């Protein structure tokens, strides 16, 4: 990757990375919202044993928020495959992971109204820094 000499390539790489991260953030927030509105899945169990899971599975699959979220995650998977074909893995993987991580914290605060306190912000920053160090 030659950022200085080929700005157009860098722009394309980073738009791909941003797009992948945006899809992941949308998907995770939608799925989190769906699961929160369903509540504790144990309450939905229809009996003991494996058959008892039919209740929670049916409830999850009937949730429109979950279905749109799952669609976003599927698109995210294919967008990531495409991105990996033009951006090297050692940049794409940590960049999308870190952006998704910070983005999720912001989106959880804005849209899910989660109480993202100081320790959660600090954790988000630590994980991003940690992911970048791991990729070195």
């Amino acid at each position, binding site marked *: 990757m030659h950022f200085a000499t080929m700005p157009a390539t860098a722009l394309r790489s980073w738009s791909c990375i941003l797009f992948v991260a945006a899809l992941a953030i949308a998907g995770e927030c939608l799925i989190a919202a769906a699961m929160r509105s369903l509540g504790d899945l144990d309450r939905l169990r229809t009996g003991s044993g494996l058959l008892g899971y039919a209740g929670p599975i049916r409830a999850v699959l009937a949730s429109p928020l979950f279905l749109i979220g799952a669609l976003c995650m599927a698109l995210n998977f294919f967008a990531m495959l495409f991105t990996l074909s033009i951006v090297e893995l050692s940049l794409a993987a940590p960049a999308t992971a870190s952006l998704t991580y910070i983005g999720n914290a912001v989106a959880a605060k804005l849209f899910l109204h989660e109480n993202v306190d100081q*320790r959660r912000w600090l954790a988000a920053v*630590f994980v991003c820094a940690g992911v970048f160090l*791991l990729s070195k």
Partner: protein
Amino acid sequence: MKHTLSPQRYLILLAVSLSASVGDSLLKRGMKQIGPVSLGHLGLLWHALFNPWVMAGIVLLIGFFASYMTALSWADLTFVMPATALGYVVIALLGRFWLHEPVSPYRWAGILLIVCAVGFVANGPSRTEHPSTHHELDLMDSGNGR
């Protein structure tokens, strides 16, 4: 407000952090046997589904999705996220002690940072309490609350 999680819920969070990373490693192991897949030979992907390593990886990733969604049904997204981040640490440790890959000082520092992050969040509350709880919403839905 509930600050502590039951042992069963800790087990689910453990499954969230282990299953994704181990599942990915198994996929990686299987795809190494299959070889590179080009756009012209997408049929290879169908073939890959019958590789035992890939199959085991897919089973674990389904398990990951199930435990992840179970965790989200009783915890905040920002609470569950560090548990998934612990997966990066598991991958690095698997690489070091199972595949005998060298781990640089940078990587050890990264592992330390992620472990600290998990510690911060795990010490806090798992769920944001909102004034309108599920119970009240259920009452309104059923009409009994009016």
